[in-house]
C-alpha cells in the first residue's frame, strides 16, 4: 500500500509541470587544487558565472517550459587519473545530463573517452591538442582552436617584421598540447624561408632552463618560440634575464594574456609576445552578458581577477549547451549531440561553430606586453597595433 501511495504521489509530482521538473545538470571535474589550480579556477568560476547568468535570464527553453541549469563540480586535484574516475562517477552514478571539460589537453584526452563511452556530449574549453579530435569520437567538442595553429599568426607576423628574423628556435614541453603545437609550428615555419636553428623538446617538469638558454645564446638566434606552461615560461624569462639572453623576438603559447603573468614578472614581462583566441571587445556581443568587455568587467568584479581566453571559452561551453538543448528541444544525449554539431551562433567568445572533428576554428590574435599592458598586435585581418620590435637587450631596458 505504501509503495503504491509513494508511486502515486511521485506520478502526480512528475505531471505537475515545469515547476517540479528536475533541473538540467552539467558536470565537470576541474583542477581546483594542485599544480594546475591557477588555470583550473578559470573553468570553475566561468562555468558558475555562466550558469548563474543563464538561470537569472529564465533558464533553458525545453518543451513548453523553462528549466534551470545546475552545476556539479568535482575537484580532481590536478590528477588525471582522479579526473577520469570523477567523470565516470558523474556519468554513471550522479547521472548528470551533460559534461563540461577540465583544463589541459592531457586531461581532456583521457576524460573524453568517458564521454564517448557513456555517449554523453562533452563540450570543453580546456584541451586544444589535435590528438583529442583525431580519434573519430562523436561526443567530444572543443572551443579552443587547434593547438597546431597556435603559432600560425605569430609566424605570419614575423614575416612582416623589419628586420625579418632569420633564425628561429622552437622549444616545446613534452605533453600532448605542446607536442601538437610544435608539429603545427614546424609546418608553418617550413612555408616561409626562416631557418629553424633549434628544435628542442624539454620535460614539462623542468624548472631550470640555464643550459637551453646558454645554447640559444651561443647560437645567437633571432626569434624564440616556446610552447609550454605558465610556470615554465616564468622561469624561462627570469633566467633569460639573468643570463643576458636577448633575442630580437620571443613568443609563448600560454601565460602572456593572463594578468597573473604580468604581476609575477613586473617590468620583465614587457616585450613578450603571446597569443589569445579572445580579446574582450565590445564588438563581441552576447545574449547573457551584453558583450565581451562587459563580461570581463563583471568577472573581475565578482572573482577579483581578470578573465582570459580560458574563462571566455568556458562560458562558450555552457552557452553552447543551452543553444543545443533549445534547438534539439530535448535532453536526450544523442539529439543534443547532433544539435551541438549543427550549432552556429555568436557570443562573447566569438563564433561557435564546430568542424567535423568537433573542434572550433578561431583565429589567434598575437598579443604583446607593452608597458605592463596587454596590446593586440596582429589579428586575422593583419596588423592591429605596432609591435615593439626588436626587443632591446636586457642591459638597456
Amino acid at each position, binding site marked *: 500500500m505504501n509503495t503504491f501511495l509513494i508511486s502515486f504521489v511521485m506520478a502526480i509530482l512528475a505531471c505537475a509541470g515545469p515547476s517540479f521538473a528536475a533541473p538540467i545538470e552539467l558536470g565537470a571535474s576541474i583542477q581546483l*587544487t*594542485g*599544480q594546475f*589550480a*591557477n588555470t583550473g*579556477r578559470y573553468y570553475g568560476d566561468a562555468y558558475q558565472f555562466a550558469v548563474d547568468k543563464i538561470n537569472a535570464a529564465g533558464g533553458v527553453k525545453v518543451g513548453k517550459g523553462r528549466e534551470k541549469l545546475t552545476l556539479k563540480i568535482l575537484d580532481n586535484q*590536478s590528477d588525471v587519473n582522479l579526473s577520469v574516475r570523477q567523470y565516470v562517477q558523474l556519468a554513471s552514478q550522479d547521472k548528470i545530463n551533460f559534461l563540461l571539460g577540465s583544463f589541459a589537453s592531457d586531461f581532456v584526452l583521457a576524460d573524453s573517452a568517458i564521454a564517448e563511452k557513456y555517449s554523453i556530449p562533452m563540450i570543453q574549453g580546456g584541451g586544444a591538442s589535435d590528438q583529442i579530435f583525431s580519434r573519430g569520437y562523436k561526443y567530444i567538442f572543443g572551443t579552443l582552436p587547434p593547438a597546431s595553429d597556435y603559432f600560425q599568426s605569430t609566424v605570419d607576423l614575423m614575416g612582416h617584421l623589419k628586420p625579418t628574423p632569420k633564425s628561429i628556435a622552437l622549444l616545446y614541453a*613534452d605533453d600532448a598540447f605542446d607536442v601538437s603545437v610544435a608539429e603545427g609550428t614546424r609546418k608553418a615555419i617550413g612555408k616561409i624561408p626562416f631557418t629553424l636553428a633549434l628544435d*628542442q*623538446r*624539454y*620535460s614539462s*617538469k*623542468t*624548472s*631550470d*632552463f*640555464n*643550459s*637551453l638558454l*646558454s*645554447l640559444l*645564446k*651561443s647560437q645567437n638566434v633571432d626569434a624564440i618560440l616556446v610552447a609550454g606552461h*605558465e*610556470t615554465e615560461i*616564468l*622561469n624561462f624569462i*627570469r*633566467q633569460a*634575464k*639573468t*643570463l*643576458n639572453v636577448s633575442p630580437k623576438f620571443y613568443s609563448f603559447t600560454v601565460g602572456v594574456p593572463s594578468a*597573473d*603573468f604580468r*604581476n*609575477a*614578472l*613586473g617590468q*620583465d614581462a614587457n616585450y613578450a609576445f603571446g597569443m589569445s583566441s579572445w580579446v574582450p571587445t565590445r564588438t563581441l556581443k552576447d545574449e547573457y552578458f551584453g558583450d565581451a568587455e562587459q563580461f570581463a568587467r563583471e568577472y573581475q568584479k565578482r572573482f577579483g581577477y581578470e578573465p582570459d581566453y580560458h574563462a571566455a571559452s568556458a562560458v562558450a561551453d555552457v552557452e553552447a549547451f543551452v543553444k543545443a538543448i533549445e534547438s534539439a528541444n530535448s535532453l536526450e544525449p544523442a539529439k543534443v549531440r547532433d544539435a551541438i554539431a549543427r550549432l552556429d551562433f555568436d557570443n562573447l567568445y566569438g563564433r561557435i561553430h564546430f568542424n567535423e572533428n568537433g573542434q572550433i576554428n578561431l583565429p589567434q590574435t598575437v598579443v604583446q606586453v607593452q608597458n605592463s599592458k596587454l596590446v593586440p598586435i596582429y589579428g586575422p585581418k593583419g596588423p592591429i597595433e605596432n609591435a615593439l620590435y626588436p626587443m632591446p637587450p*636586457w642591459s638597456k631596458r
Partner: protein
Amino acid sequence: MQLLWQILVNGILLGGLYALMALGLVLVWGVLNIVNLAHGALIMLGAYACYYLFAVFGWDPFAALPVSMLLLFSLGYVLQRFVLNLVIRAPMFNTLLITFGVEVIITYLAQITFSADFRTINPSYAGANFTFLGATVPLARLFAFGVALGLTAALWLFLDHTRIGRAIRATAQNLIAARLYGVNPRQLYALTFGIGAALAGAAGTLYGVVSQINPYIGAGLTGKSFAIAIIGGLDKSIYVLVGGLFLGIVESLTALYIGPTYTDVVSFGILVSVLIVRPTGLLGRTA
C-alpha cells in the same frame, strides 16, 4: 668550449642551491632516522615567508633570510615536538606516511592562504650578471651559492665543534650511550628538526629569488633533495654539498648534450645506480 664552460658554471651554481635544499633533509634523516617527505613543503613555506617580507614590507630577500629561517625553525620545532615525536620509535614506513600527510596538509593550507597565483621575488638585482672568463654569472645565483656554502660550513662547524652539535651527533650514533651522558633526546630531536626546517627556509628564500613560487613546488623539491641525500650520503654536511654540485653539473650537461627531456631520467637513474652499486652513498653511509 665556451659553451661547455658556461654550462659548468650554471651547473655549479645550481648545485649549490640543490645542496642547501638537501641539507635539512639529510640532517633530519641522519639524526632522527625520519625521511621527511614534507621537506619540500617547508622549502615552499620559506619561499613564501621571504616573498611576503619582500612584497609587503619591502625587505631585501637576503635580509629576510634570517627571519624566514627563524619562522621555519619555530614551525619545525613545534612540528617535531608535538606531532612527529609521537611516532619517533615507529617503523620507518609510519614516519613516511605521517610526513607525507603533513606535506599534503601544508600544501593545501598554503593554497588556501596564499592562493595558487604564481609569485616571484624580484629585487632590482634579480637579473643582474657579470662576465667571468667569458661565462655569464647571474649575481642572484652567485649570492645564493655563497649563502649555501656558508650555511653548509656553519652546520658543519655547529655539529663538530659545539656541545649541542656533539650531543646531536652522539644521539644519532648511539642513543643509549647519549642518554647515559645526560642528553635529553626529546629536546634534541625537536632542535634538530627545527634546524632542518630552518635550512629548508633558507633554501626556499633563495629558490624564490631564482625561480617562481607556487604552493605545489614542494613535492618536486623533496624528490631532488632525496636524490642528493642518496648520492652524497648522510655522514657529513660536506658530502651533501658534493652531492648537490654533482647533481647540478650532471643535470646541466644532460640538458645540453642528451636533451632537456632527460634530466630527471638521468638524475634518478644515478640515484638507482648509486643504491645498487654503492648503497652507502658516493662518499658516506646511508641509513
